[in-house]
């Protein structure tokens, strides 16, 4: 059961440790379990992928770690961020962690940005909220962050409104916001699904650079095997609320153990080959 996990070597404890996580929703017909005893680790500087189809519970798992589950969700099990429990702490304590030590990059940046606020102001919000710094100090950090996510001419673009940004730039702005306070864990929930492939390739490279340069651990939620293969070190495969297998990316692709993983690999079309769908 113990496959070699390079990022676990020499690290005291995982950046994120989830144990026997359950998420239930109360329905008229009884409880609906969307996450069923999921355990996963993200080690420091590791990029961990969670892959699954719709309804697999991958997003609910990610949102649990942010404590951002929809109203009415009941959560069980344990979640620890750098050894600190996240399940039983109060909402005000959780708010102090969000954006500071753990950050979320959502799927649809346009939906997450406030259309009436300039981008720079929004990217600077973590400083405003968590550090209560002066406007001038925040502004220079915002420019620095936008430069770090490779937005050209950041001094000018920081004054733009979100609709003046392209889809890729909006997602970069969200990433900049996530990076603001150098969190130890970044959770990215399908951050490139709405983007063109060439733009996606640049965003994935940016995330890799962030890990390499800043040392953040990244939990990456996706439904695309190709992204996992290209970006992640370790992968958890989810189906119907459960983890069906986990392991190093290369092994999962070359020697999948679970039937479901094999089926997913089989079903995914590849640009490198052509299968039997054509006659």
């Amino acid at each position, binding site marked *: 059961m113990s496959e070699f996990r390079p990022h676990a070597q020499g690290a005291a404890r995982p950046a994120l440790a989830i144990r026997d996580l359950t998420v239930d929703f109360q329905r008229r017909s009884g409880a609906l379990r969307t996450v069923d005893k999921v355990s996963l680790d993200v080690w420091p500087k590791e990029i961990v992928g969670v892959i699954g189809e719709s309804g697999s519970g991958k997003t609910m798992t990610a949102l649990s770690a942010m404590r951002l589950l929809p109203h009415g969700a009941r959560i069980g099990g344990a979640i620890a961020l750098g050894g600190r429990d996240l399940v039983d702490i109060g909402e005000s304590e959780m708010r102090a962690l969000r954006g500071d030590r753990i950050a979320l990059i959502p799927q649809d940046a346009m939906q997450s940005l406030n259309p009436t606020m300039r981008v720079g102001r929004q990217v600077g919000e973590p400083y405003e909220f968590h550090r209560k710094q002066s406007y001038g100090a925040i502004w220079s950090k915002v420019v620095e962050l936008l430069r770090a996510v490779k937005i050209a001419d950041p001094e000018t673009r920081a004054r733009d409104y979100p609709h003046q940004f392209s889809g890729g730039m909006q997602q970069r702005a969200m990433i900049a916001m996530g990076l603001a306070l150098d969190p130890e864990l970044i959770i990215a929930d399908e951050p490139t699904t709405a983007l063109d492939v*060439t733009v996606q390739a640049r965003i994935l490279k940016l995330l890799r650079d962030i890990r390499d340069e800043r040392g953040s651990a990244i939990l990456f939620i996706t439904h695309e095997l190709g992204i996992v293969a290209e970006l992640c070190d370790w992968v958890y495969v989810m189906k119907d609320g459960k983890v069906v297998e986990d392991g190093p990316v290369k092994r999962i692709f070359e020697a999948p153990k679970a039937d479901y993983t094999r089926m997913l690999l089989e079903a995914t079309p590849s640009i490198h080959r052509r299968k039997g769908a054509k006659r």
Partner: protein
Amino acid sequence: MSEPVVRIENVSKVFRQGGLFNRAPGFKAVSNVSLNLAKNRTLGIVGESGSGKSTLLRMVLRLIQPSEGRILVNGAEIWSLRGGELKALRRQVQPIFQNPASSFNPRQTIRAILSAPLEVHGIGSVAERRERITTLLRRVGLDPAIENRLPHQLSGGQKQRIAIARAVILGPSVVLADEPTSALDVSVQAQVLKLFADIKYDFGLTTIFVSHNLAVIREVSDEVAVMRRGEVVEQGEADRIFEDPQHDYTRELLAAVPSPAFMARA
């Protein structure tokens, strides 16, 4: 080589911008595109958002009129057709759209949805139509009892099977599909693509398949056209395009697809 089933000749589409008093130059969504498609072949059109691939497809569907150029289906220029000839063209060319949820009337049963094309074209008696619907539902891998359901009661994959059934129920020669699987999970996508290929073969269809997903395009296409900003930058046999791309943009697109080297051997 015989006459192409679909012939696109120097087609351009300019969308007007600005109001009554502000005559902006307009936006060229499709720019001087020429493509020919022989019988029983599948043309994959691939490009990123804004490349003009959907506009081109909608012009072949005769939903948008080209600003310049001609489109011929089975030898007839589609915008010159009137009356009975136009109705015959509508029978010959059928679409499958991206979002199955919005391409059906939510208040109609599946039977009514599938029966509508037959009624419009006055085909068969009520009993014959029912028979045809039942047979076709089986052919697309669904239980015929599904005909009493409403679209929202079906899964995404089931809806796309219905969309395929509706596309072929009139016995068309050309089916045009615009991102038909991009809203589906990969496991469902694989089943729908397989069905699409089987149906194409059984019904002897000539098809155009538009997608932003290069891997899907590779799987379904005999030939491929790569579009960028309204232009076809490269076209040719699918294997050649994927294995030996000539244009820089095609190379850039292929390089951007997240797919590791070790998947290539599978």
